[in-house]
Each structure stands twice: as C-alpha cells, then as structure tokens.
C-alpha cells in the first residue's frame, strides 16, 4: 500500500462531528505509529508517544484550524511531545533513545519477521544517532513522504532550514552505514 503525505480526506467530506473527527484520527494511527517509531527508535516507545498525542489532540482540538491538515497538526503535536518527554527524562536522569533488543516482530512470517526486525533495528539505530532536528526532518520527508513545504510547516521552520537539515542528516547517515 503506497501512501503519501497528502490528506486522505478533503475538508468538503467533513461533517465535523465528534464521530467524524475520531474516525479520522483512527485512520491516521498507522502513519502516526510509523512516525513515532522512527522518532523514538522503538515501536513500544512510539506507541506511548502516539497515545499521548491522540489524547492531547482530542483535548485541544479547538486549537486545530478547520481547513488546515489534521495530519500535519497531529504530527506536530507528536514531535513536540517527544521533545518534552526527552527533556523531562533528561532531568530525571533517564538515558536517551535506545533501540530495544526485543522490538516486537511486525509480520508473522518467520524469516521475514527477522528481516523486518533487523531492518527496523538498523535503521532506527542509525536514525537515533542523528540530532533530533535532523532526524525529524528526514523522517517526515523520507519516510512519511511529506513535501518540503508541508514538512517545514509541521516543524514550524523555514524551508531553507529544513533542506539543510535533510542534507546534513543524509551526509551523516551515509557515514554511519557501510557501503552496500
């Protein structure tokens, strides 16, 4: 299934009811989980972040501007919550992002599960070595498929800042990863 960063549902289809908004957020869960896993380095930590993000989004829904992208707004909440959590962990002495050995298998087929786990672990491990500002920029563009403009909007930075972060992130990743 190919997905893009574009909104799945147009505003014209919205009826703005509670059920409509909740259904839209359910639709966004897979993408939020992927983004959060890539940011935090693990599926479990990512899911914690997604849960926090969903609860915050619903509680603060009046801050979302109808007509703007709900997905971008929620990705921004996830990014900000992740930064807040890291800050509070730092204060309380918890060590930063680590990729756990027991990351759950993502597919049931045995060999493929092992591959997928290895890939996720390798990629997440490489991403975790990037400064957060580079990681979030790269993940939005390379994994989530956001355009530069939309990614810059999520991160609330100018496009020029976004492109230089992506360039630095890719340079760094090329150095971490062995030549294929």
């Amino acid at each position, binding site marked *: 299934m190919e997905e893009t960063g574009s909104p799945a549902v147009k505003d014209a289809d919205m009826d703005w009811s509670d059920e409509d908004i909740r259904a839209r957020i359910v639709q966004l869960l897979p993408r939020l989980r*992927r983004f959060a896993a890539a940011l935090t380095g693990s599926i479990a930590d990512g899911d914690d972040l997604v849960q926090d993000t969903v609860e915050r989004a619903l509680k603060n829904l009046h801050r979302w501007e109808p007509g703007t992208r709900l997905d971008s707004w929620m990705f921004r909440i996830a990014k900000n919550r992740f930064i807040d959590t890291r800050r509070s962990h730092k204060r309380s002495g918890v060590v930063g992002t680590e990729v756990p050995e027991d990351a759950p298998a993502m597919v049931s087929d045995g060999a493929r599960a092992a591959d997928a786990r290895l890939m996720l672990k390798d990629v997440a491990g490489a991403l975790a070595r990037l400064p957060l500002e580079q990681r979030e920029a790269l993940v939005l563009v390379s994994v989530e498929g956001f355009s*530069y403009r939309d990614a810059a909007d999520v991160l609330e930075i100018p496009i020029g800042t976004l492109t230089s972060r992506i360039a630095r992130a890719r340079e760094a990743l090329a150095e971490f990863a062995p030549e294929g």
Partner: protein
Amino acid sequence: MEQEPTPEMPNKEMLNAFIDGELAPKDMERIAALLAERPDLDQWVRRQEEMRVGMKDAFSDLLSAAPPDRLLAAAKTAPLSWRWRIKRFTTERVLASAGAMLALGLVIGVALQPPSEIVTRGGQVMAQGALATALNDRLASDGYAGAGARIGISFRNRDGRDCRTFEAGAQSGLACHGDKGWAIALLIARPNAESSGAYRMAGSEMPDALRAAVTASIAGEPFDAAAEKEARDRGWK
C-alpha cells in the same frame, strides 16, 4: 564566497531536492542529464535513494498492522475538547448571522412567546423574576433543581462582562451581566424542548445559534466550576 548552485553545478541540497522530487520538472531533467555524465554524483544520488527506500521499508509494516487496542480506545473514547463543539459551528456560517444579530442587539425568536421573566426596560431586554434569580445564584452543576432556568456555561465576554447561557422552558438564551442586571443578548426557541428534564450533553445539545453567539463574544476560556462559583460569590461583573 560560495557560488550559487545551478543544475549544471549542483550542491548537495540541490541533489537532495532531486532525490525528493522537489525540483521544477525542467531542473529534474537537467540534473538527470548531468548524472549520466558524472559517475561520482550519480553514485552519491543512487546511494541516497537506496537509503531512502530502505528507511521507508523498515517501517512499512507499521502501516498495514492493526493499531493496538489501547490506541484505538484512545482515539475513540479519550475526552474531546468541548470548545471544539462550539468552534466547529463557526465553519458553518452560523457565526456570521448570529454575530450580526448580536451586534445589532437583536433578540430573535422563532414562534417565541417571551416568558414573563423577560421584559423590556429602558430599551434593553432584561431578565427578571425567577430567571434573574437563576442567573444570579445558580451554578451549572445545579442542573434543573426545582423551577426556573438551567445554567449552561459562564464566561467573560470581550467587553469584560460576565455572560451565561441558560435554558428556561422552551427557550435557550445568552444573558450578559450589566449595571442594571442581566441583559438578554440572545433568546431562541429550543428544539425538542419537551425533553428538557432528561440528562443531556451541554455541548452537543446547545443550539447552533447560541453556540455561535458564545464563540463570537467569548474572551479566553469559559469558567470552570471554581471560577463560576467565584464569579457568583462576588456578584458578577
């Protein structure tokens, strides 16, 4: 001094934009042509493209996997901003009409029989009697205790006055406190008024025009229970 990059002399950011498909079609073509002549750049681009695909693949199973129950439960049941329920109606053009009526100081009614608790005094439509007493004394948490009006939400408006929404009989309204008591800013017939005794959600049952009137005039957040009680105890502004 760094030279401005061109498709003939691209820098890494331009090559990245090529990888991400962010260049104008003409520049995409020019970079592609350049890569055919520059194996060093071509190798760099290919490697970055592979890493981009690899990164996406690494997380792709999360897209097809069913989200865990706890996330579905959060999306379906976590508390939803009640201010959103007010705000969403501003997108439905109710705001314009209700706002205009408020600006003109009109009290609207649909087949409305103004109750005896509402009178015109000195050119203003004012609450009196049981309605005025309810607006002065009652808290939202009191509900329909005995006779009189039920209070919805209370808030400070942009003029610095305290305002309260209420339901009285078959009507809903918005009243704002002034020097001479409670001025009725909006009064409308309430749909399904016969079910008034039953428990209802304050947000979802508020008539659209009333919602819009609140949204148009509120300054900041509505009062919570503590602020509402405090405003009552000091006699309303």
